């Protein structure tokens, strides 16, 4: 690697799923209902076992807060017929709204649901990593919002040195597709991707407007 690549760090162990990050993002960018550049997945699995008079909760749950992962191999960028998506020197993936035609190919290409169509403008939208804040020496809006202090960001290599690799976690698809620039510290309940007894409990809350 060696190339600069900014990445989000997310500590799933202590995420309460309060979604303050989601709304801090919406507030900064004035995104209306239906656009969720950052969203929080509530993952649940397991089952209940009856044991005489008692219930044994063989149940687990954790949250994944996720924005755009500013992938190292961004499929969105490759899918755009008008080259409206670019990867900056610091690794941030941005849409050039002037070039975007609103064809929504990138929306289909992205396995994370990060690219979202704005009906009002007819253009695609996505997380910008708050590049304006970064230029001003500030942290991204979601990072400074978290009441539990579980979000951070930094150079991908540095984050991986500190926390190890962490992007093979349900509901993320296998990382080899796009090499997402995200490091997630797994919750004790996190199972590996594609575990079958696991599902997104709050699907209606994380599905952005189609």
């Amino acid at each position, binding site marked *: 690697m060696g190339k600069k690549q900014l990445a989000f760090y997310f500590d799933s162990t202590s995420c309460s799923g*309060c979604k303050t990050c989601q709304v801090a993002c919406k507030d900064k960018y004035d995104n209306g209902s239906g656009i969720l550049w950052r969203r929080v997945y509530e993952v649940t699995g397991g089952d209940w076992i009856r044991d005489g008079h008692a219930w044994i909760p063989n149940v687990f749950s954790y949250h994944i807060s996720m924005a755009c992962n500013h992938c190292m191999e961004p499929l969105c960028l490759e899918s755009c017929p008008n080259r409206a998506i670019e990867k900056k020197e610091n690794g941030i993936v941005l849409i050039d709204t002037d070039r975007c035609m609103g064809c929504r190919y990138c929306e289909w290409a992205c396995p994370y649901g990060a690219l979202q169509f704005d009906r009002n403008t007819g253009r695609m939208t996505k997380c910008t990593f708050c590049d304006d804040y970064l230029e001003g020496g500030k942290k991204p809006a979601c990072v400074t919002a978290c009441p*539990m202090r579980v979000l951070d960001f930094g150079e991908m290599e540095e984050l991986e040195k500190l926390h190890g690799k962490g992007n093979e976690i349900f509901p993320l698809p296998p990382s080899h597709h796009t090499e997402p620039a995200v490091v997630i510290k797994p*919750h004790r309940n996190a199972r590996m991707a594609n575990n079958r007894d696991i599902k997104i409990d709050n699907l209606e809350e994380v599905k952005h407007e189609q």
Partner: protein
Amino acid sequence: MSRKEGGPVISAMDRRCFLRLSALFGGGLLASGGMISCLGEKESKSLPVTMEDDGTVIVRAGCPSHNCGGRCVLKLHIREGEITRIETDDRPNDDITDPQLRACIRGRSYRRRQYHPDRLKYPMKRIGERGEGKFERITWDEALDILASQLNRVKEQYGNSAILVPYGTGSYNQTNGRQTAARLMNLFGGSLGFYNSYSWACISRATPYVYGTGVTGNQRQDWVNSKYIIMWGWNPAEMRDGTNSEYFVKKARENGAKVICIDPRMTMSAVSLADEWVPIRPGTDTALMSAMAYVIISEELHDKDFIQRCCTGFDSSQMPEGLENEESYRDYIFGTVDGTPKTPGWAEKITGIPARTIARIAREYGSIKPAMLYQGYGMQRRAYGEQPVLGGCVLAAITGNVGIPGGWASGIALQADDGGPFWNVFPTGRNPVSERIPVFLWTEAVLRGREMGPEDGVVGAERLENNIRLIWCVASNILINQHADVNRSAKILKDESLVEFIAFQDQFMTPSGRFADLVLPVCTQFEVWGLQDGWKYGDEVIINPKIYDPPYETKSDYQICAEISERLGIAEEYTQGRDEKEWIEWAINRYRNTRFPEIPSLDELQKENTGVYSVPIRNPKVAFADFRRDPENNPLNTPSGRIEIFSRQLYDMGKPDEIPPVPKYIQEWESPFGEESRRYPLQALGHHYMPRVHSTHDQIDWLEEAFPQRVFMNPIDAQERGIKSGDEVRVFNDRGEMVIPCRVTKKIMPGVINIPQGAWWEPDENGVDRRGCVNVLTSHKWTPLAFGNAQHTIMCQVGKA
């Protein structure tokens, strides 16, 4: 006129500041009173008052104060008189001695409330039937004349005790909301008094029977010293319970504490803070506590020395004089009198928790030192809600976790050593009406006030002098939405022969507002000066500068009261010549003379522009430390001076079945073990939901998107009823019915459903609620000792709609 208008801030600005702002913003904005006060120079300890290229000004202010458990700081971006962005506390050095007061999703969504099209804009009077929600616009003069004349009429015809300014926490900073009207009524000759709250009736009433005080909590910075934390029905990540409480638990865990969560729901706190979730059948907490005591005492894990030195009533050797043969706590636990030892096996049948789990938790809590058993408040808003409060306190006492760092005495746990925040700094004064009712019984006082006496919890009189005839509802949704049994309340309020006049003063037309005769529109907390201290915990004062003038025809609560005070002829007494900002200066002075000698002036606070004055806590105080060290010379304020595991006061009430002198498990009056469960087999909870503060914020789109209103149900119960996630379902019992979508989730115990409280009642033509207000299902029956609300004790049924 001696009273100053609370209006345009521009007049309060000094000229230098005015000129500077004029240069920055142009005259037009200022002429409309659009900007807050002077922006100070940057000082070394302060955060920068930044002026962006586009003219955006940054102002740090308190998050509008409702009645969540948080008191947070917002960083407002203001451009051309409009709040364009809301960030949060960004003070440097975010460490646990003085952590940032980061706002949650509710505060961060505030622009959607501030600029909501449904804000009340004009005074109105009713034109249809009461409760129909039909109003016409009137002038302020007419509106204020109506209210003043009604107050005078009722005072003359019945007396002041026929007036009620109900419990209400919708606007909760110091010169806002209910207390502005309370001050006015106290100067007017008083109004019917009340005690208790809808939040804490049982825990505030019961805790002192054990400890002689409600100040039973260590300062939160001490939590990192704990090695074992039981979050018992406690969900700080969602209700906050003091900004950063969830963060302090996280820090404790990082410091090696094991955390378990006992709750019927796998709460946000259970997921993010606990090492283990122990689901419990609602209303059975005292059974679990008793079984834990059984294991702890049987296995000699109790702290005999501490019990010997500091407690009374633990066993027969410690009984109060003359009651030596009565049932001690130990007698109850081992079944000496009732023949039922409170074993884990006994509790398994009641709680639904495996006996081996109960025994293990008991051993952990009994042996890992120091340990915290933190009681949430949901379990005390239930039938016999006093018992789990007492039971938790007793467990803390017999394990010797009282008076030590990292321990926790349980109970209401106001902050050592001064009780923490004041809450009501604004001087409401003394109520000349001595009669007080338990707050939850206000509908009883409407129906039969003159019959009510001590048996209904009335204090200050043998019988009430009046039924309630006039209600002035300020920043409160208690008339309909938040009181138990909505359909019953609606029927009572519709009858104009009972309450003859209802005034409603708020920011939105809530379900309570629909029952008003007169509607007074109030500005938001961004449009009036305000000040807050912490909620339950905290060592800070947060200021709420007035960002701009009230829009439309709205006025502040204080302004409305001041204008009524003129009509009642008590303006000078009411305002004392102060506008809202001057009251804030007055309040800051009060803090300077009490909790915070070092607090700067309001001008200095504004110049610093951090939004908050805070005192870092490096040596957290521990409740009962002196008592523990030397109980003889530091006795508690209990009859014995000791921790009362057996209470003679409770014994003397002579109602052992409902008010036992030692904490006992009592089957609730609506229970899965009762006959009623044949028709209504499901227990319903109405938990405090992340997107709302009680009923505030229910109309906010960003919040509804994040957390839609649903009935949550276990897959086992759903499958029995053929229900899938997303299905519209009927939830009903004898008191009411709602139809809302269902979310099937494994994160709730079988047999239990959850309808988050606070959604706004929306009855259709058949009276079926279409929004999911849990209070269509709740009962107005009150608890035996505290006369508190038992709104979480609900049996109901669910079917496909």
